[in-house]
């Protein structure tokens, strides 16, 4: 094994986790606050129980927010415990990782504006379809 490469790979992996640790910690603190102060009935007012509407809401929220996927899994997982539908959670997670509003300017410059626009738009629509399809298959299997 190449010692330099081992060190570089380890540092890169550590930095990747370390850089998102403060945000992760803050998000977990926020989740704990929400868990204590917001009753479960509140979520049922936002999420209607309609699979299509819930998945659209999930995809919109996931598209606006950004960051390490670790954070999206924790937010999604904890919201699932609060009774939010699985479809909304999956749409949220998929949109979080596939739609890149923050990277959009850089992506437009390097890969082209039309490319970035179409890629992000289709990713948003696909987040909804992927969520509906995945949960349906998951329930059938």
């Amino acid at each position, binding site marked *: 094994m190449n010692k330099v*490469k081992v060190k570089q*790979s380890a540092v890169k992996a550590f930095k990747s986790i370390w850089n998102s640790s403060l945000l992760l910690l803050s998000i977990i603190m926020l989740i704990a606050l929400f868990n*204590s102060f917001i009753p479960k009935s509140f979520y049922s007012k936002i999420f209607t129980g309609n699979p299509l509407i819930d998945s659209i809401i999930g995809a919109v929220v996931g598209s606006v927010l950004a960051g390490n996927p*670790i954070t999206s899994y924790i937010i999604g997982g*904890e919201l*699932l415990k609060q009774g939010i539908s699985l479809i909304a959670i999956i749409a949220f997670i998929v949109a979080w990782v*596939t739609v890149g509003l923050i990277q959009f300017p850089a992506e437009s410059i390097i890969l082209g504006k039309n490319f970035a626009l*179409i890629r992000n738009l289709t990713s948003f629509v696909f987040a909804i379809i*992927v969520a509906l399809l995945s949960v349906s298959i998951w329930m059938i*299997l």
Partner: protein
Amino acid sequence: MKFVSELKEKISFTKAFFITMLLIYLLIAFFNFNKFIKIANFFSSIIFKILPVLVLIFILMFLVNYFVSPKLILKHFNKAGGLVGWIIMVLGGVLSSGPIYMWYPLLADLKKKGVKQGFIATFLYNRAIKVPLMPLFLIYFDFKMLLVLTFVMIVFSIIQGLIINYLEDEKVL
């Protein structure tokens, strides 16, 4: 006013968010200690749940960083085409690590070399599938969901690639 603008520059969003959370926790501890204990218990339960998994994530990230590089993917993609090209882009996206801007030069290079943009879109979509983070996903969701979601996302990454290739052929891109 100058002080405020300087302060804004110095404190990043993440730090400001963290400090705000700390202050809220301090206020709760001061005014309602029982509530604070309840919140702190919930907070620590999540932390203890994810800490061991973070170690596993580190190991998996290290392995991916060690064995996969933009050069390696480019080398294999240049040799391939057609179906193998799609497979390489799917695998490349899944195995790629690090921030996206690190991969932009590779993708821009592929574009310059005449690679159809649908392949690039497929690569980017598959970056959403993170093998090192799968253990964390499994804390909240089951293995069946992991498999189904991964499979459906791979299928849709190729559909997205095909749509973008079609639009490129039609000169929309």
